[in-house]
């Protein structure tokens, strides 16, 4: 490829993630930030959300959210996996439902979530708490225009049918962890 010229196509995404800019000790600052997020999450006491690192690895957390009151998800809890890149918080963490037990128009069969703040709308100001709260509110307020699960999206208007499908889906999965 010879596309260069006076203004060579400057690095697009993904080009040099490994050798990311990282002035100063970035690993340490990510660590610090995640520690303080953990602190405030534990102190904050938000209803229906919680998160904690998996073992010693501060870059990998497990979150839990409970469906909001008045929604079809009320009383149901879901587990999420949060993986933080070394570029965090300048890069969004990878968040998925794990096990993929969530039947929802914006969640696919692998647990991937379609949520703008986890993609192009990500901001370094967001944190684990805002992510979990956003996903919690997404449960009761899906974006039906861009469904990842078309079946769920088509059932959504009929909440009674949706609830049936939701419960069936959840019970079809073994209660234990299905995926590592």
């Amino acid at each position, binding site marked *: 490829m*010879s*596309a*260069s*010229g*006076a*203004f*060579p*196509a*400057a*690095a*697009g*995404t993904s*080009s*040099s993630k490994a050798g*990311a*800019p*990282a*002035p*100063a000790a*970035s690993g340490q*600052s990510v660590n*610090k*930030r995640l520690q*303080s*997020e953990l602190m*405030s999450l534990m102190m904050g006491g938000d209803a229906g959300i919680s998160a904690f690192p998996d073992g010693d690895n501060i870059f990998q957390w497990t979150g839990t959210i409970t469906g909001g009151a008045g929604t079809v998800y009320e009383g149901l809890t879901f587990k999420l996996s949060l993986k933080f890149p070394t*570029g965090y*918080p*300048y*890069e969004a963490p990878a968040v998925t439902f794990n096990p993929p037990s969530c039947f929802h128009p914006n969640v696919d069969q692998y647990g991937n979530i379609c949520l703008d*703040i986890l993609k192009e*709308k990500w*901001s*370094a*100001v*967001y944190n684990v708490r805002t992510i979990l709260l956003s996903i919690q509110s997404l449960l009761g307020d899906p974006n039906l225009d861009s469904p990842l699960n078309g079946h769920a999206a088509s059932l959504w208007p009929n909440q009674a049918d949706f609830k049936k499908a939701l419960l069936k889906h959840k019970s079809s999965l073994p209660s234990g962890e299905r995926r590592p």
Partner: protein
Amino acid sequence: MSEAGSSDGYDEMSCSQEDTSDPEEEIFDSEPIRQQTQTFTVLDASECLALAQKEVDEVRELLCCSEEVASILMRQFRWNREKLTEEYLCDADKVLKRAGIHQGENLEIVHADGAVAVGGTSQPRGSLPDVQCLICYETSADYSALGCGHQFCNTCYTTFLAHKITDEGYNCVFATCPKPECSLVVSERLVHSLALPADKRAIFDKARRIERSYVDDNPNLKWCTAAGCGNAIRAPKGHLGVKCSCGQRFCFKCNDEDHAPCSCEELAKWMVKCRDDSETYNWLMSNTKACPKCATSIEKNGGCNHMTCKNSSCKFEFCWVCLGPWRIHRAGSYYSCNRYDPEKEKENPEAKKKDSSRAALERYLHYYTRFTNHHNSLKFEVEARAKMEEKIKEMEKQGDKTWIDCTYLKDANEALYECRYALQYTYVYAFYLPQGGNFRTHFEMNQTELEQQTEQLSEMLEKDVSEIHRAEVVHCFTMAKTRLTNLLELVAVRGSGSATDTSGGAGSSSDP
């Protein structure tokens, strides 16, 4: 990266300097071969800047805003001045907000020269109250903010920008305040006040140069694809081959090498085909034969010449050597494998019953071998250029001729290169040309003429100095050039009826 400049909606974009120079005239000298089809111009970096600056100045006057605001707006509207002015006059606030331009009270905090400017007024460094950064959650007095007043510590701001520049390249000019929902575009002042690595800052500065986005966003302009060349080329939409003054030749539409007369799509298809098929095809050609009955490709994987077609509906038994039925090879039968029978060649069932896939394969190989042949010859022509210099010197030594007298050899070599270059792609073009029809006959006739002329020229130039005659060479390469022009015109006429109209050049193809 944005490829083919097919983005509609910019057609009406006015390039006010369009008519200041006469492109025809400039091109005539630099590009003698395709003068009829050429309508492009080469602009150097300062000309690009001047064009962009002119647009910005006009917008600045029209909207009564600062130059910085005018540049940001033009960049945001991708140099579509009509759209910008229309929307601006309709709702200026909305346009400014969307472009990330600050309005209202200036809450900017920028560190510079040992002091800190808050809303434009300088105060001593360290005089700011401690604030908790929203990114790292640390408390510090060393922070910055854009006009919106959203404060982030300088370390985080710097890392944030470094990430933006790495991830988004030149789009980093559109980076906004890290605070969600705040659309304020980061200012040059802020970026320069932070301790960014030099390479990152260089990308940011380059990205901000108005001529960069002016050229990038203008479908009629493109940077030369040669590394380190700062020129841009202006050509009408849909134009294909261009040549920069630095010598780089490329296709204006797809940025790949100049591939006239075949189209970008054909070239892309061809390249994929060559990559996918050539090896398989070559292997099939050299290692298999078609079953004489059903034409399935058969590989001989043992020493015996007695072959049985594995095609379950065929199961024909034949001889690998003569492709005749095996039964006549059995002992006692009339064995004729070792005899050459011209009559048999004619009625060879292989020729008649050729399966379409094998025919397609052979057809492809026909074009492929010719394409690669010219492609490889090109390399020699490049070497020949260097040798030509020596030949010219030798000629000078022989007396009676001056260097100027011998430059026709260089022209001849250049013409030879051009012809070979185009010839390789004529085979791609022909491969995708529908079979039959008058046009094909016409095209192939022109192709033959060009090829013959090119070979003649090639041979002539390889001769010894003493055997080269000026009149002969000049005649030969002029003919070659004419034939190339004819061929390209023929293709252009077929392609898009209007393609040749824009050239305004000399008439249609005429045989010399």
